[in-house]
């Protein structure tokens, strides 16, 4: 059964929007500094948090209103260097404007968690679900996760703080979910007891900052000054890559521990498989389309097709080993992107990375890069069933579909009549 169907009301739930779930997660995580600048479709996250702070529901939390996204990240970096748990949220163009400071946050190794209500990049102006914005921050050193459900937004933010603040990791993280599709629709979300959340994610100890940097008048220090090419610049960059790849284990541990305390599981944390074990044909998909794809898989299974799907939960660090395992299980594997990577081998960010992961592994699984739902274009279950049927046809005939655009199937393209 799909997740949507098996939803059982065991704990107290609230019917809330995805953005409000993100705000509640920040409240549950006891964040100490929030910096805010509104941008559609993220606005209601920081609006809700301002209500919490103003209403005295988050005692001791500082809420900073700044004049731009660039300042948002700059102020959050400052607050984080002081050793606080920080939170902010943004979307699309706001994230692009923040870009310089995003590199500073990762380079300073600060555990900042930022939610992104993803939207398409302008021009043409677009505010609907499309992961191109978080993809744009791919090479910054931030971790990035995709959420498929309202509950997952709440849960992933808690798990993110757990991973980011680990002293072996100390890197920032984006938690992305589709704009409007998740951010502005309401669903029941379990909001956990504060005691239980504190048990999983204890409030920060009253120490002087993180191990690598802290504000202390007794021991002044300086960070961010010039390193000559003969200095250790290259090695510090290498350390970020090394840490990011090693953080995969930390993500798995944090997800397992979350399951133990709260009873909700998200695969191994990096990928979540659905009916993959006996499948001949599979698809890798992420974000909100993944939840709906479970329905399509269920329907096709009832029709007798052996199909399965894998939900990609983390884009950075990329779960190379898990992707290899998934590809081994099936004969034909589709990779569905909702976001563009122009000029890349396939045009889709995840499909390009999947192809790169399988190189030199000797795996002969046929891969079909696919695109759907760009700029918030509606993708319904029937369409997703057709997408899977394309893969099944590919398996039966052994031939690629003939309507590919530079090797990629752009699904749901408008026809001129």
């Amino acid at each position: 059964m799909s997740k949507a169907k098996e939803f059982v009301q065991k704990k107290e739930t609230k019917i809330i929007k995805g953005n409000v779930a993100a705000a509640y997660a920040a409240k549950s995580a006891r964040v100490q500094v929030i910096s805010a600048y509104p941008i559609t479709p993220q606005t209601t996250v920081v609006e809700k948090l301002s209500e919490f702070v103003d209403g005295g529901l988050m005692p001791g939390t500082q809420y900073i209103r700044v004049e731009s996204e660039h300042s948002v990240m700059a102020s959050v970096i400052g607050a984080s260097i002081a050793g606080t748990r920080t939170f902010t949220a943004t979307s699309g163009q706001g994230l692009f404007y923040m870009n310089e400071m995003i590199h500073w946050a990762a380079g300073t190794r600060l555990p900042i968690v930022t939610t992104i209500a993803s939207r398409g990049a302008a021009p043409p102006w677009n505010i609907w679900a499309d992961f191109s914005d978080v993809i744009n921050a791919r090479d910054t050193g931030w971790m990035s996760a995709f959420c498929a459900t309202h509950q997952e937004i709440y849960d992933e933010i808690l798990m993110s703080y757990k991973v980011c603040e680990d002293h072996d990791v100390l890197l920032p993280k984006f938690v992305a979910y589709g704009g409007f599709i998740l951010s502005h629709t309401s669903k029941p979300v379990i909001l956990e007891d504060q005691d239980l959340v504190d048990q999983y994610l204890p409030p920060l100890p009253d120490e002087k900052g993180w191990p690598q940097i802290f504000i202390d008048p007794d021991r002044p220090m300086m960070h961010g000054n010039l390193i000559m090419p003969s200095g250790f610049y290259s090695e510090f960059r290498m350390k970020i890559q090394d840490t990011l790849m090693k953080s995969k284990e930390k993500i798995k541990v944090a997800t397992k521990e979350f399951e133990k305390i709260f009873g909700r599981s998200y695969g191994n944390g990096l990928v979540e498989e659905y009916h993959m074990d006996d499948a001949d044909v599979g698809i890798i998909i992420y974000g909100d389309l993944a939840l709906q794809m479970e329905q399509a898989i269920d329907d096709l299974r009832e029709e007798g097709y052996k199909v399965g799907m894998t939900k990609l939960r983390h884009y950075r660090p990329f779960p190379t080993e898990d992707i290899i395992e998934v590809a081994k299980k099936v004969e034909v594997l589709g990779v569905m992107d909702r976001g563009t990577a122009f000029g890349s081998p396939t045009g889709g960010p995840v499909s390009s990375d999947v192809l790169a992961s399988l190189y030199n592994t000797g795996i002969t699984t046929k891969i079909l890069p696919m695109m759907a739902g760009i700029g918030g274009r509606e993708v319904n279950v029937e369409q997703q069933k057709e997408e899977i049927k394309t893969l099944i046809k590919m398996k039966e005939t052994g031939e690629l579909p003939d309507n590919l655009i530079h090797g990629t199937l752009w699904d749901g393209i408008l026809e001129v009549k």
Partner: protein
Amino acid sequence: MSESKEWKKIAKSKEKRPKVQEYKNWKELPPIPISLPIEGSMGITGDWRTFQPVILEGCNKCGICWMYCPEGVIKRKEDGSFEIDMVYCKGCGICAKECPTQKIKMIRESESKDE
């Protein structure tokens, strides 16, 4: 012997050089590069100097130069008078500009050798 020759001697002396943390390989490195305020972290900056500040007689020991020096190389002696550390002084001339009694003079390095 002029002071300019004096600090060159110091620069060559290993014992008097500022200590810099050295790492053998990248695994020993901390997560990020941090500079701690140690004396002369940028090396012997005294050899950047073209003009050398000289405190003349009649200094009223007000301490304005000490306060304005961007490099912190002006030190107060026990008797309250000031001396300038020529190993690190870059010769920017801010002290001479700010001195309210004009008792700091900037002398070209080549001229200072003749004294």
